């Protein structure tokens, strides 16, 4: 892999939908620990709608496609996830209008712009125990590989970084989102948003034939 084609992004989106639908209940259960147990369902309703409307989505460029997915989030995704994912896709859509292929460096920039949008929308920063804590290291892994342009290695490192974030943030106290309103009691539970990003990247690795380390969850299941 070198440059990132629109076809690859389409495949990544479809893989994401599979991941989210397969893990709907698992993600909701995680959200039940310090939140309100709807994260999986909320996200799934968005990706179900994406699947339903897939054939009609304007795929003339990466940007039009991502914009449409942002609109699907606004229409179908409830909870915090609607504004967060909707904003993320919106910000990623802007710089890719008219493009059908992007470089790894551009992808890293586009993710940074999504991160900035999410921070502006919800006021969270790194360390607040939200999915941003997974997106930041993913972005950094991509940026680190930008010069070499090796997308496969970037993806592998990004997935490992996201996975590491699950455990690194577990003991944190949530600073934003519903979990932040429970104070100390959000510590020692993994954040579902971080788990979701890690799981999605793991599945991207599989979908693109990139070898990756098993997720912390997979290791735990294998041991148990």
């Amino acid at each position: 892999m070198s440059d990132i084609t629109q076809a690859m992004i389409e495949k990544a989106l479809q893989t994401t939908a599979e991941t989210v639908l397969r893990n709907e209940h698992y993600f909701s259960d995680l959200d039940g620990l310090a939140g309100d147990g709807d994260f999986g369902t909320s996200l799934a309703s968005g990706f179900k709608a994406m699947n339903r409307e897939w054939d009609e989505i304007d795929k003339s460029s990466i940007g039009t496609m991502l914009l449409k997915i942002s609109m699907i989030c606004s229409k179908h995704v409830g909870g915090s996830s609607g504004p967060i994912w909707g904003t993320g896709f919106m910000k990623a859509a802007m710089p890719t209008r008219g493009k059908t292929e992007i470089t790894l460096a551009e992808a890293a920039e586009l993710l940074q712009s999504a991160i900035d949008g999410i921070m502006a929308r919800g006021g969270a920063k790194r360390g607040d125990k939200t999915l941003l804590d997974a997106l930041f290291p993913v972005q950094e892994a991509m940026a680190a590989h930008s010069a070499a342009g090796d997308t496969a290695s970037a993806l592998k490192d990004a997935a490992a970084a996201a996975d590491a974030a699950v455990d690194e943030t577990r003991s944190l106290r949530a600073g934003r989102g519903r979990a932040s309103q429970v104070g100390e009691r959000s510590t020692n539970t993994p954040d579902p948003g971080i788990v979701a990003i890690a799981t999605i990247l793991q599945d991207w690795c599989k979908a693109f034939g990139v070898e990756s380390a098993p997720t912390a969850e997979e290791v735990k299941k294998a041991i148990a």
Partner: protein
Amino acid sequence: MKKFVNDPEQFVPEFMAGVVAANPDLLEAIPEFQLIKRKNVDASKVAIVQGSGSGHEPAHVMAVGPGMLTAACQGPVFAAPPVDACYETIKSVATDAGVLVLVNNYQGDRMAWDMACEMAEADGVTLKQFWINDDVAVQDSLYTVGRRGVAGNFFVLKACGAAAEAGADLDAVYAIADKVNSNVRTMGLALTSCIPPAKGTPIFDIGDDEMEVGVGIHGEPGRERAKIKPADEIVEMLFDAVANDLPYNSGDRVALMINGLGGTPPAELYVLYNKAAQLCADRGLTIARNYVGEYCTAIEMAGCSLTLLKLDDELEKLLAAPATTACRIF
């Protein structure tokens, strides 16, 4: 799952269809956006809108009606409505007098309504936003999104609804929201969890002899998990947490609400009220109005919340003003 439900994904649309079917003269629905609005919106009056996740009925769509909300939308159970639904709700009742967006303080709801308000303002709608945050269970802090909004919501919207009905302008109705919110405090407590239909399993585990003190209306954890106590001790706990927070002082006139979280029967709520009324008397508080029943629920959770609102003449008059909603007895 021991619930009356068909397809869990259709639970919210079906219940909303039922609410409108039962109140054909009062309400109409826009099912695509899961929103319910009053028929015959008076364009000369401030419109009041609200919206949050479902599962808190009669809040919020069942609080639409003359003297109460002008429109409300609901997301899936316990999830803020999608941005588009919030936007359409504002647009559907936007009057010349403007719109007050009155939302419980949860980050999901705030983000959705923020985006919707930006979109509506870009369309030329005059509006103001107000966040309700009466829950004393979890502390307010600069580093979090602040306190949660719970049953005190009823008092904010009742007073604002009455003021709007009486012809107050947007700034005046906003000021009422602020006054009520500044003077209202709530704390809840759960004996059991609840089961969101789409999830199909309880939202948290709780032992047969345990209670969750300060629970959120989505089953979020509160202050502590404790051994279950006699009703009177539970009321004391809730009352002290609430009454010391503002605080409410001897000589104050108050409204007292004992709110059922969905699975607690009326008789138990009155056992709680009986004790709470005594505690008010002990503290020198005069109960000018009282409310015992289900105002803001967590689906079928067994539990309660206790709310105090400090009154002045203006608020007392607004609470006493007539109102009509889908929620009625006769």
